[in-house]
């Protein structure tokens, strides 16, 4: 019985499709990420958490938030 059920479920195209999709997507974002003209940009944006905006003082009444 188990054999019969599994033979109905035999879908080899599924893992193959998965593999192809993954390889295509992975190649694409590796290419984009490691393009040489992006190097300095990524070095810069890695600083974002360390950049605090300028403090201009405590909140006054009616000030925009």
């Amino acid at each position, binding site marked *: 019985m188990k054999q019969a059920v599994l033979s109905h479920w035999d879908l080899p195209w599924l893992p193959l499709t998965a593999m192809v999709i993954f390889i295509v997507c992975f190649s694409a974002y590796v290419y984009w990420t490691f393009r040489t003209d992006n190097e300095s940009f990524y070095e810069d944006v890695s600083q974002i958490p360390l950049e605090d905006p300028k*403090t201009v003082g405590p909140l006054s009444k009616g000030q925009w938030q």
Partner: protein
Amino acid sequence: MSSTHTSPPTANRRLETFSYDDQIVKSFVIATVLWGAVAILLGVVIAFQLAEWRLNFGVPWLTFGRLRPLHTNAAIFAFCGNAIFAGIYYSHQRLCKARLFSDLLSRIHFWGWQVIIVLAAVTLPFGITTGKEYAELEWPIDLLITTIWVVFAVNFFGTLVRRRERHIYVAIWFYIATIVTVAVLHIVNSMELPVTLLKSYSLYSGVQDALVQWWYGHNAVAFFLTTPFLGLMYYFIPKAANRPVYWYRLSIIHFWSLVFIYIWAGPHHLLYTTLPEWAQTLGMVFSIALWMPSWGGMINGLMTLRGVWDKVRTEPGLRFMATSLTFYGMATFEGPLLSIKSVNAIAHFTDWIPGHVHSGTIGWNYMMIAGVLFYLVPKLWNSELYSKKLANLQFWFATIGLVFYIVSMWVAGITQSLMWRAMDDAGRLIYPNFIETVVKIVPMYWVRAIGGTLVLVSFFLMIYNLYMTAKRGKKRGVEVYESYALDDSSLEPGASSHRKLEGLPMVFSVLSVVAILVGSAIEIVPSLMAKNYIVKMDVVRPYTPLELYGRDIYIREGCYTCHSQTVRPMTHEVLRYGKPSEAAEFVYDHPFQWGSKRTGPDLARAGGKYPHMWHYKHFYDPRAVTAGSIMPRYTWLFDNKIDYSTLSKKLAVMKKLGVPYATEEITNAVAIAQAQAAEISKELVENGVPAKIEQMEVVALISYMQRLGVDYGQLPETPVELPSTEVK
């Protein structure tokens, strides 16, 4: 510090002032520590209950089966959930240089989430549960979760739209993946048809339900306990170390790989079950592939500390974060290892799995939360950390407690597994009585409980330390900041496609959804068409009304937390339990009850194995029939009368779900159930049980137990037809 990456010439740019909403962050921080204490306390209680059954106290709502779902839900959604919201709201505002989209939505989000937690705390101990692990909450609470999650999403994306920073920093990518994926997981897995306000049945059954449930269950770990924490890691570690992330490019590869791969790995929870082989293989392969992004993230986090390792020694927050990443690395090494079929054959259903889970939830999540709280609380309350010594003490309590936990569960798990499969030269089980394998590991349950207690002590130390830190804080006014508004001048002409994408939150979100939906669709869509593949067996019939009622009691009491209902095609399992399970056996199981742990034996073939009287005695006092049993007593089943009022409705709902009940069966459900109860109680009464037992819940549960695996189990074995080329 400043940079020029998104700062074109400032002429003509509008300077804006704004403030952050840190009050909401404070609220979530307080909720985190409160619910964290509750979650860990519950964990310690149930750990001791496994070591000593008397600690169930004979009270229904204090039994392991009911408290365990509460513990897992509290740890994941209350403790980690509140921590995620605190960390996201703090970092998201700063990374966007904008106040949260709406103060009102923030408050609705906070109070709505706390109401959900309270409702979980009220319903689960009373046995109001769907019986699906990590998704036990009933349908009205599911709807509330969906609503509050949408509120969170609107607040989050609204803030993103109002941001003053062109580039969306990588931490936010992880937050986006979390928000969209959790929404998809929750909605798909929670599809259920209500019977009453507090009772529903899963839309899916058997194999379908198993696949959907573990697609959800695995990805709840992925997208509730991993991606948001990775986002927090990418913000708080650079912040606490005052250094940029080690390799930003790696973080991009990390993100897309993790999001894409994680979603496929769910079936590794169902290896050797009746799930299709291709799905099992797919789950295993993608689980192994997860090593790559997981370790990429861990390395990126740890290497961010290059040059400041001395701070790990002196700064408690950084120490917790670094340790958290180490445990993340360990857990994400162990996870794929456990997904390899040959390893899984040994580890699945054993205590190794809770050991693995807790190396993640305590080692990775708790430690990261502690690190984030040690960063946040002094900043939010304008104070200095009260005591580094206490923090160090907390660190050692937590670490040693966790090591106790993990090692004891490794030992228990491997011992169990080796004993289950031990066979002599004649091919007989050496330990045919399951209880022998339980008694052997009880000492390890004590070690685990002690380890958990140490973790609880560490948590209380943290609460005290944070409370004193906050108490010593000095009041200050709301800070106002200024930054340039985001306008077209910050766009980069000629930037690469991915660079542009990184500035487009909505397109980015859609692509994240596509990434997770590809894997989900390929896994789940064929399963949703399972009816076309699974050949129904005439011998497998729907549960009788009384059996269905008994099944609901089984779910209510959380029996699935200790017993599985699926026999794997392994020699030792067939010898111990009977024929391997078949997909067609479960077509009427809404929800499936395969379980994930065998603290007690598998019950898939329990029907007819013992007389009714054995079950009667067993539920009243398991030690009366199984010396050394650690199962609690279920004495209230002998006092609670069967409530027939909704029985017909239950059958009607089941019929809507595709279970072939005849109209007469639905109409006469009560009479049919009463007749079966009378039949069972007749045998009990002959053995000296009072006649009133016929009306009690225990009879319904016995009827269900006696039905398990009977239909298919009674079929004679059929020889396997080999292909002609192999027949010599």
